[in-house]
């Protein structure tokens, strides 16, 4: 290893200059004034006082209530629809069926395959077959009940493996196999021949509901100039606009989408606002009045996207010393009724490809083969949910690594030390990780904080009755920043005003993650002003530059870079003006704390606003426009080889649990989660992402599941669909490490999704360690744990 490499491996190392890719990134940690501070969130004062308005808090003037008639059948032909009675009900203003769609009768985040209103057939329980707009919510609901639909039920398919069979009922014209992707590296058969130990396991995960606390709502307004405004909580206003326009038969320029603060999104509000936006806009266009659709909680569960369920078969081989030599995986990925965010956007976009790329885990394995099948079924559809295909495969690979370690007689810590990525490692897709690889650092930091050595010895029975056993577990993970599509770019505008105040325009949305604090921090840092000097404009497609969706843990990094570019454009003017005013060469002009000063003589200084005013007075440009796209992704469709994502965040979690071996109940006693985030722009907000993510991973591990029976969801409300309460989540200890990303603002990379991913397997591994039973199908609820202990022949003796 060269010295350079050793340097980079150190925690808290900041990047050197990389002029070829990001000419403007040049900084030292000590120079940062605003970025890196745990500042209070900009929207907190409105949130703690109840003044912040969410979507459902708006009642547009003279608005109509929109409602959707949903299919009770998982798969059926529509023979006829009779809307006469509904139309005659007093107070009903419009009843729309498929023939009322003026443009494209389809929407979708990737492929527009979901009908705005079903025409000839329905494909899941909840598919929309008619729309109603009425003067009151009650009338709208009564009208729905009066619509007569004559269905001819068709055989339905509920398992992705059944869906691939030749005689399976065909859900879409294109066939049930939506995507087949493969990854080939080395020769797996030869790898298994070398292996001393080979194990094979199957893991399964169910549909999951996001349970953002704020139910979906959207409002659509027809405007006299022929444009349509769509408002609501939405993670991806540009995607909504891209869908609403063709449905209404309008050019994109005539549809305006405005984002309202979200009460949580977690990927779910990428899809649902497209669905509701198209439908509300259609009703608004037909009636000429504003239309609001608010979903009740049960309707959110029935109608909106879920986390994809998967069946994952893995065969893994290792040498006696734990060195991994071969990995073979098959993924049966269930898409449900519509394509949503599942299929591939070349080269490496879409959740399915992401699952495939992530499946072998953050380990060096010379021989890898993955076959990934994405199939339609007559279930609700899988979309984006915090981790986008990664939580599922982490659940599998992190468990099989532990099962393999047990077979080899080495500790879970050792097998990870042996195989984890480090700087220069080659991934299963052949990508050489050439910068910002802090995985091993997270493993060691986590082990140290958690006191792994001590805790891993203090396992076994903890009570005299011998009913409660303690155990520890590790979960490791990696997650991309960016989305791996061709068009993954962010735009930002920065306007500086003569009084020193600043407007920042971006299309990145706030859903609780803190973008509206972190992005102004980056802007303020660049301009040497304070966060309160920067006002972030609420995302509005008529005002802000295209920014792509707020997904893929991309906002801080990609938008951060765009903001830096925009701010530096303005800064050119400011530097010129200040150089004249201070009578110093431009390279000596510096900005900090609202001051512009001479680097060599700090007392020679001006107020930032004085400089801004001079720019204004002398006609210098005070508008900056930034645009940043990550380096191009690549992934060979035949071999799955290439560089799908430009940088990754790394993490290790450790959990200590107690299992009641008689009932299967689990208590989480202690939890540490360590991350290499590149650079924490707002450490406290980042901790919040970690703690919340772990809680979500805990729910996936222990209690969450969308229960389906013949295509019908059995737990649509929050009593039956359980998410963790304050009594279920332990006191999580976050550990933040910074191995700088050369391509991120101040070294940052994404964090939004990573925290929930390794949490699930860390808890599952701890459970197995505690009770001797291994649960390979989520959720590991008390019953599954109970039977797993039975299957293992009872708890261990000691």
């Amino acid at each position: 290893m060269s010295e350079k490499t050793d340097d980079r491996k150190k925690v808290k190392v900041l990047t050197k200059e990389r002029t070829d890719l990001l000419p403007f990134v040049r900084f030292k940690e000590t120079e940062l004034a605003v970025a890196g501070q745990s500042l209070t969130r900009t929207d907190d004062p409105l949130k703690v006082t109840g003044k912040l308005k969410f979507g459902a808090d708006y009642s547009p003037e003279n608005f109509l209530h929109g409602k959707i008639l949903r299919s009770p059948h998982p798969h059926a032909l529509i023979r006829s629809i009779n809307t006469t009675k509904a139309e005659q009900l007093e107070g009903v203003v419009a009843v729309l069926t498929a023939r009322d769609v003026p443009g494209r009768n389809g929407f979708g985040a990737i492929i527009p395959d979901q009908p705005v209103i079903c025409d000839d057939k329905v494909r899941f329980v909840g598919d929309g077959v008619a729309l109603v707009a009425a003067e009151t919510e009650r009338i709208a609901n009564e009208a729905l009940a009066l619509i007569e639909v004559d269905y001819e039920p068709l055989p339905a398919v509920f398992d992705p493996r059944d869906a691939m069979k030749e005689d399976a009922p065909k859900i879409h014209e294109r066939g049930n196999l939506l995507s087949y992707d493969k990854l080939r590296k080395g020769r797996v058969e030869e790898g298994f021949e070398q292996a001393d130990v080979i194990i094979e396991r199957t893991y399964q995960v169910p549909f999951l509901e996001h349970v953002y606390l704020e139910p979906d709502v959207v409002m659509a307004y027809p405007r006299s100039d022929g444009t349509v405004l769509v408002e609501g909580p939405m993670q991806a206003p540009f995607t909504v606009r891209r869908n609403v326009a063709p449905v209404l038969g309008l050019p994109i320029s005539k549809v305006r989408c405005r984002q309202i603060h979200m009460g949580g999104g977690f990927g779910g509000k990428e899809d649902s606002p497209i669905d509701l936006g198209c439908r509300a806009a259609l009703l608004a266009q037909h009636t000429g009045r504003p239309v609001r659709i608010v979903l009740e909680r049960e309707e959110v569960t029935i109608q909106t996207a879920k986390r994809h369920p998967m069946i994952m078969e893995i065969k893994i081989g290792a040498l006696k010393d734990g060195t991994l030599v071969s990995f073979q995986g098959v993924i049966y990925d269930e898409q449900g009724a519509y394509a949503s965010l599942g299929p591939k956007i070349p080269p490496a976009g879409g959740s399915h490809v992401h699952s495939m790329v992530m499946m072998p885990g953050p380990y060096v394995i010379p021989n890898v083969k993955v076959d990934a099948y994405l199939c339609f079924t007559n279930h609700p559809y899988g979309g984006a949910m915090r981790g986008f295909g990664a939580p599922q495969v982490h659940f599998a690979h992190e468990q099989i690594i532990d099962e393999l370690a047990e077979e080899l007689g080495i500790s879970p810590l050792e097998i990870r030390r042996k195989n984890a990525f480090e700087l220069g490692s080659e991934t299963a897709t052949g990508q050489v990780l050439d910068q910002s690889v802090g995985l091993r650092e997270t493993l060691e930091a986590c082990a140290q904080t958690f006191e792994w050595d001590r805790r891993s010895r203090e396992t076994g029975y903890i009570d005299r009755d011998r009913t409660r056993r303690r155990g520890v577990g590790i979960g490791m993970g990696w997650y991309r920043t960016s989305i791996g599509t061709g068009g993954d770019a962010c735009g930002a505008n920065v306007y500086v005003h003569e009084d020193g105040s600043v407007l920042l325009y971006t299309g990145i949305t706030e859903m609780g993650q803190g973008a509206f604090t972190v992005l102004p921090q980056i802007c303020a840092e660049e301009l040497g002003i304070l966060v309160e000097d920067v006002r972030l404009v609420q995302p509005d497609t008529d005002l802000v530059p295209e920014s792509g969706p707020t997904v893929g843990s991309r906002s801080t990094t990609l938008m951060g870079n765009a903001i830096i570019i925009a701010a530096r454009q303005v800064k050119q003017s400011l530097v010129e003006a200040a150089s004249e005013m201070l009578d110093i060469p431009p390279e000596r002009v510096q900005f900090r704390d609202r001051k512009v000063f001479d680097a060599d003589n700090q007392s020679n200084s001006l107020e930032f606003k004085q400089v801004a005013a001079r720019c204004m007075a002398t006609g210098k440009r005070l508008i900056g426009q930034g645009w940043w796209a990550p380096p191009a992704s690549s992934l060979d469709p035949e071999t799955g080889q290439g560089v799908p994502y430009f940088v990754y965040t790394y993490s290790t979690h450790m959990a200590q649990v107690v299992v009641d071996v008689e009932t299967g109940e689990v208590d989480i006693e202690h939890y540490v989660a360590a991350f290499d985030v590149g650079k924490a722009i707002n450490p406290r907000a980042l901790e919040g992402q970690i703690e919340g993510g772990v809680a979500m991973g805990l729910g996936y591990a222990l209690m969450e599941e969308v229960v389906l029976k013949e295509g019908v969801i059995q737990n649509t409300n929050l009593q039956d669909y359980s998410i963790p309460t304050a009594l279920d989540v332990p006191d999580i200890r976050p550990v933040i490490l910074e191995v700088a990303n050369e391509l991120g603002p101040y070294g940052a990379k994404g964090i939004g999704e990573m925290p929930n991913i390794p949490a699930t397997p860390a808890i599952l591994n701890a459970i197995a360690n505690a009770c001797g039973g291994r649960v390979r199908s989520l959720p590991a609820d008390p019953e599954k744990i109970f039977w797993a202990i039975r299957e293992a022949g009872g708890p261990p003796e000691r």
Partner: protein
Amino acid sequence: MSNIELSFTLNGKKVEAAVAPVKMLVDLLRETFNLTGTKVGCREGECGACTVLMDGEAYNSCLMPAHKVQGREVTTIEGLQQADGSLDPLQEAFMEAGAVQCGFCTPGMILNAKALLSKNPSPDEEEIRMALSGVLCRCTGYRKIVQAVKNAASESRS
């Protein structure tokens, strides 16, 4: 349908309203009084986003027929802020601890914490978690919320 005339104290002021049979308190607050800080998340008393205080105790306003507030004293999140604009120590503590993310559960969390601290000024962690167990949060993992309540408690003791 016959409306009932209600009078009660809302955020310190006497108010009156004509209410339809089984209007839920949450809808009365949001629609008639425009107090939209009280949120609707499930309408079945599971998420706790609609929590309000009635005579100092926390209740789910989504399950409470508005008629039950007749003659009572109701406090919503909007009522915690003083007339001079100053915030309740809990509101300050939530901001300082980073206990707010999407903010949808925040009013319910703060009001449950308020009910707790009024009965028990020095709660331990378990008591805090118990008091907050009827408000679901999907963003924070609860840790910073628990911390905020602890901080507010020790703040008001000192």
